[in-house]
């Protein structure tokens, strides 16, 4: 059994860990509220954007000449995967869930004999992926400096993706992120953004639109923006998920630390009592032998 002094030290250290996790939980809770708000506020934009594109692609006259961003390059040889993770740890299974999802997708692609390219957003994803897929990672972006997800950053990623697409570096682009459902549940998502996958979605309007200038030109202007918008949406969902995940992880940690303190305290008291009893027995038996 550990000595009294050791136990005391351990109790103190667990208690101070508990303080840290508690504080982190509070901070995450506050940040979560903000992130959730901005995720909700960002929704109308991406929804409207989606709607407009849907209407446009339905109204397109010349099916042959649709922009490549919409219809694809006609082959599926090279896949680009944008894996979006956080820059900070201590957020439970948040990052490993995305990585797991991404890895199973990577394995599928490589099994099919296709080429794989990876862009990681956020340093944690890069750390976990570079061991196995280090040679596949072509770019690593991290937004450590910016406090909140903002459109400017998303646009940077979007422009880079489009640049690579136009240079013919890949055919299909998929982004990986965590969708925020609630504080305990985040669902890792794989969303294909190039070519745009609109199948199964019906346009809700029967009306025909007037286009100015024509559809093709609007589409080719709009699609790059849509890429950035989708990435931005993923970033917002991700940041809400990260805080949610961190909050529940830290909540668990705080509770576990509490349990541990209780257990250690009992052990401490017991061994203290044992020491006292032992001393008493020694004194009594010493007195008796006289």
């Amino acid at each position, binding site marked *: 059994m550990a000595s009294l002094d050791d136990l005391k030290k351990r109790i103190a250290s667990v208690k101070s860990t508990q303080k840290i996790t508690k504080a982190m939980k509070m901070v995450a809770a506050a940040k979560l509220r903000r992130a959730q708000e901005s995720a909700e506020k960002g929704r109308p934009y991406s929804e409207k954007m989606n709607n407009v594109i849907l209407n446009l692609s339905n109204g397109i006259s010349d099916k042959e000449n649709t922009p490549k961003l919409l219809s694809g390059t006609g082959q599926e040889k090279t896949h680009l995967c944008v894996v979006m993770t956080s820059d900070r740890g201590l957020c439970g299974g948040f990052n490993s869930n995305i990585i797991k999802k991404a890895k199973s997708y990577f394995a599928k692609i490589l099994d099919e004999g296709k080429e794989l390219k990876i862009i990681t957003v956020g340093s944690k994803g890069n750390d976990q992926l570079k061991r196995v897929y280090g040679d596949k990672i072509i770019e690593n972006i991290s937004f450590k400096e910016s406090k909140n997800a903002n459109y400017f950053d998303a646009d940077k990623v979007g422009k880079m993706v489009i640049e690579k697409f136009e240079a013919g570096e890949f055919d299909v682009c998929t982004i990986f992120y965590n969708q925020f459902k609630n504080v305990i549940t985040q669902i890792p998502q794989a969303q294909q953004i190039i070519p745009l996958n609109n199948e199964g979605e019906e346009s809700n309007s029967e009306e025909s639109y007037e*286009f100015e200038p024509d559809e093709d030109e609007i589409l080719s202007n709009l699609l790059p923006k849509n890429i950035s918008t989708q990435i931005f949406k993923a970033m917002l969902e991700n940041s809400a998920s990260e805080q949610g995940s961190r909050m529940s992880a830290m909540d668990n940690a705080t509770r576990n630390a509490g349990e541990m303190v209780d257990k250690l305290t009992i052990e401490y008291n017991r061994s203290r009592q044992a020491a006292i009893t032992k001393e008493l027995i020694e004194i009594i038996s010493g007195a008796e032998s006289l």
Partner: protein
Amino acid sequence: MSEEFKVEIVNPEKSFLVKDDVSEVVVPAFEGEMGILKDHISIISFLKPGIIKILSKSGDENYYVEDGIVEFKNNNLSILTSTIFNLADMDKSKQQDLLKQAEEEANKTDINDQSKYLADQKVEVLKTLN
């Protein structure tokens, strides 16, 4: 019947403005300014840098935008834009900053014609504001 319709401006971060007593909106569409009144035909178009004018009973408002898409349907006007500023909130120094940025962009030599055109437009619009 009233001659008013609803306008909604959204940027990526949030819903920027919602107004439902608007009588006319003038947007800087790509092929020239376009005034939209009630019962306009459904239209989709995109914007170049310029000023959005919103005329309503509660007063006129002017916004500076750099890009965007407009969609008008069933007397609902949606404007999606990534950069928008209310002219009333914009002071001289902010204007100068934007102008400087735009001028720098316009003077770059390695950009294509379209972005050159857009940057020139920006400079022009910002200059008229001063």
